[in-house]
């Protein structure tokens, strides 16, 4: 029981304790003002307790926390964003009804999501993952609009589906080890030699891909992220999707060198990246465009992981985490920023929109921003082939999408012509934005293994810039013909699934009819005899 271990444990215990304290109505009503403090221990742990660990309960449960580099990196970013967004929420939601409920869901989601970065055994991971994904339902459906309700329902259905995939995958993984609750790395180490490798990998990608938003399982994201209150959107889009990322990092046998599977994942990731851009540029809601951008970026992360797995390259997880951290902070800042822009008059906006521009283009790899760093660091994994080209091209797509976003942002109507942004929401945004610019610089060298100077070479700069330019050109074209593009509804293919709804209803009705028939006395009693006869024959 070391100090670092205790610090890590407190990272989980504090938010959970706070949510438990909300059982008392008095605490609950005041909780919103304090939720910013919940992730502080985790942040401290990320900074000071790297490499530490603690076993929370003895055999056979072995609930274990541990903080490796990958975990610490994401944990730190996530804790920072949670804290900032919490601070933001206190101002943003002030005076609204149901803030107590919001705080409870917030704290639970927070605890779960931070937990996913810290746990080392399978059961705890599943627990943390479930808590994060199920509690997020409360954030998605916080607003009581019909749109929020639909988004919440879709979110819940798919989240549960994802849980089911993951559970089965975990069960398969756990079979490889003789103990009840293995550590993740023990189970993953045994996976490549398992006869059930194929189903396990498919289930893992399905389950975690659903959380990350890999196409076509991304449908819940463009519905769910926009309807949540702004700080919650930031957390959802910035952090919760990373639960899927960390899942893939932890559970895929990245260093086993499985070219077929890795290639498949690359293909899936890149497809997602482009697909989300294509749909995203037809959207007219700022937050929806951001959600599609998240889908696209997560596609890239998946592709990074896939490329690493194909090559069996060590350090893949760290590179992917670096990319994810960049996205986490930037996307968080963007969502928080949208809230500021929406709530302030045009004359107060200029600076913010400018900063948002930098942030947005960072996602496309604007030189000297975190995006450029992340892309540069991950590039070698793709080698020189088609995948590499496509990965680079994805930056073009991102540029296009982000320019579309900036345009929508600029045109956002203001609620109040004189409103100035409050300090309570401006400050956290500024912190996150700043962190997104600074933090990757600090981490770049240890993660990527390159010197920072490499980034300033002409070749590197050009590689970062030409997609931006190409994207710019395409964007101009897009703005010309923009209105002629078909309006793809939010959540795209879910709408197709919607057409299946009458079929589902009809099946339900048929089952009811069948049930009514079976519940007739003559039928049921005849069945009784049929069953008796069948068992007599079978036994």
């Amino acid at each position, binding site marked *: 029981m070391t100090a670092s271990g205790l610090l890590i444990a407190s990272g989980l215990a504090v938010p959970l304790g706070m949510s438990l304290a909300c059982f008392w109505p008095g605490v609950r009503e005041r909780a919103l003002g304090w939720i910013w403090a919940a992730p502080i221990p985790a942040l401290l742990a990320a900074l000071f307790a790297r490499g530490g660990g603690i076993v929370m309960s003895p055999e056979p449960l072995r609930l274990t926390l541990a903080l490796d580099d990958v975990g610490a990196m994401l944990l730190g970013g996530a804790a920072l964003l949670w804290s900032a967004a919490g601070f933001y929420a206190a101002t943003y939601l002030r005076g609204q009804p149901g803030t107590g409920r919001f705080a409870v869901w917030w704290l639970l989601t927070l605890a779960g999501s931070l937990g996913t970065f810290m746990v080392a055994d399978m059961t705890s991971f599943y627990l943390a993952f479930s808590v994060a994904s199920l509690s997020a339902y409360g954030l998605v459906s916080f607003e009581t609009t019909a749109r929020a309700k639909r988004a919440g329902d879709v979110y819940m259905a798919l989240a549960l589906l994802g849980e089911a995939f993951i559970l089965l995958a975990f069960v398969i993984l756990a079979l490889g080890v003789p103990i009840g609750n293995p550590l993740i790395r023990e189970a993953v180490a045994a996976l490549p030699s398992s006869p059930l490798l194929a189903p396990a990998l498919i289930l893992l990608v399905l389950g975690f891909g659903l959380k990350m938003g890999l196409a076509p399982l991304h449908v819940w994201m463009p519905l769910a992220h926009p309807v949540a209150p702004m700080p919650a959107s930031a957390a959802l889009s910035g952090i919760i999707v990373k639960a899927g990322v960390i899942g893939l990092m932890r559970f895929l046998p990245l260093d086993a060198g499985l070219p077929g599977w890795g290639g498949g994942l690359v293909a899936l990731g890149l497809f997602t990246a482009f697909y989300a851009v294509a749909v995203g540029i037809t959207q007219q809601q700022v937050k929806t465009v951001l959600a599609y951008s998240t889908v696209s970026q997560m596609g890239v992360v998946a592709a990074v992981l896939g490329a690493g797995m194909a090559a069996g390259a060590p350090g893949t997880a760290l590179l992917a985490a670096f990319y994810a951290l960049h996205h986490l902070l930037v996307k968080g800042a963007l969502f928080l920023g949208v809230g500021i822009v929406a709530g302030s008059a045009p004359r107060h906006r200029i600076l913010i929109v400018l900063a948002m521009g930098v942030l947005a283009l960072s996602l496309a790899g604007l030189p000297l921003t975190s995006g450029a760093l992340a892309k540069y660091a991950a590039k070698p994994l793709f080698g020189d082939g088609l995948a590499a080209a496509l990965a680079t091209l994805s930056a073009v797509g991102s540029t296009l999408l982000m320019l579309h976003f900036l345009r929508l942002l600029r045109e956002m109507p203001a609620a109040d012509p004189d409103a100035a942004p409050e300090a309570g929401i401006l400050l956290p945004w500024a912190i996150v934005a700043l962190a997104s610019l600074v933090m990757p610089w600090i981490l770049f060298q240890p993660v990527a293994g390159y010197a920072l100077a490499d980034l300033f070479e002409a070749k590197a700069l050009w590689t970062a810039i030409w997609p931006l330019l190409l994207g710019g050109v395409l964007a101009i074209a897009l703005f010309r013909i923009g209105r002629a593009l078909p309006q793809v509804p939010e959540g795209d293919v879910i709408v197709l699934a919607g057409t299946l709804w009458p079929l589902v209803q009809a099946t339900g009705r048929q089952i009811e009819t069948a049930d*009514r028939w079976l*519940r007739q*006395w*003559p039928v049921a*009693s005849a069945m009784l*005899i049929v069953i008796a006869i069948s068992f007599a024959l079978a036994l």
Partner: protein
Amino acid sequence: MSAPTLYGLCAAALVGIGLFGLILHPTPLRKVISFNLVGCGAFLFFGIAARRGAGAGFAGDPIPQALVITGIVVAFAATALAVALILRMLEAGASTVDAKPLPPDDLSP
């Protein structure tokens, strides 16, 4: 053919006939009677087991006989309870004829 075998076949037939009635009869009273028929068949199976197990100076194995006596009592109690239910239902005004299945939601409190 020995007497126990003959009665055993009779028991099988009773069970068959009773089951037929149990499946088909729409009114609960007739179901109760059919259930009793099947029960009689079941008891007879014990009866032939008793007779076939004759020995040690007993004309029949006493254990199955005792079981049948217990069984008859229980079957009678069941019949009485079922009949009381049928009659009470009649007073409450529900048709006891089992023509249609119970709709799933006709359970207004």
